[in-house]
């Protein structure tokens, strides 16, 4: 079983601050997805990265896939209370393999 370790587990910041959360593994993934889960809801996909070194931007969120495709990071600029939630990374081990392995997530709390 391929494991994804996310850090930090919990992050509490003030509105306007920047932050980075990490997703690391000793295994190579063909693709990696980031989801955000709000309380009482299911996870919602934010982005999929598939190429080593790839960087994708989604408004104030910047996602990077490591060159070796073993790690990824999510950077949020000028965090807002609406960014509060559980950020989950999920990896697919092989191209064409649909089963995802999820990390435990980073719980982000952004206070006004």
């Amino acid at each position, binding site marked *: 079983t391929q494991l994804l370790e996310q850090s930090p587990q919990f992050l509490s910041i003030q509105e306007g601050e920047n932050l980075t959360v990490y997703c690391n593994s000793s295994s190579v993934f063909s693709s990696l997805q980031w989801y955000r889960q709000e309380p009482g*809801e*299911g*996870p919602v996909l934010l982005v*999929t990265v598939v190429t080593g070194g790839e960087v994708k931007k989604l408004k104030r969120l910047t996602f990077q896939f490591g060159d070796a495709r073993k790690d990824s990071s999510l950077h949020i600029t000028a965090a807002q209370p609406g960014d509060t939630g559980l950020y*989950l990374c999920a990896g697919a081990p092989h191209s064409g393999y*649909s089963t*995802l392995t*999820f990390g435990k*997530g980073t719980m982000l709390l952004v206070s006004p």
Partner: protein
Amino acid sequence: EAGVAQSPRYKIIEKRQSVAFWCNPISGHATLYWYQQILGQGPKLLIQFQNNGVVDDSQLPKDRFSAERLKGVDSTLKIQPAKLEDSAVYLCASSLVLGELFFGEGSRLTVL
């Protein structure tokens, strides 16, 4: 477009009782997943269906958990008998063959 529907949203039972959860995936999605999410952790795959066939059930505790997807559409997940450690949110997700997972809101189970 209607999302993934799950019911019930909440269920409280005593240990050794049985419970069933229902999921209706997005129309046209061939792949259906059941995940277990314990408080503070990421989702753990229980079973994955491709149409009405099982792709992966390696982490399903088969002595007490069962799932079926008759006619390749709706699915039910049953737990019998329930244990205290089964308290969790049970998430159903669906996808086209590969790619983004669309999650339902989940069914929260409390076992007393």
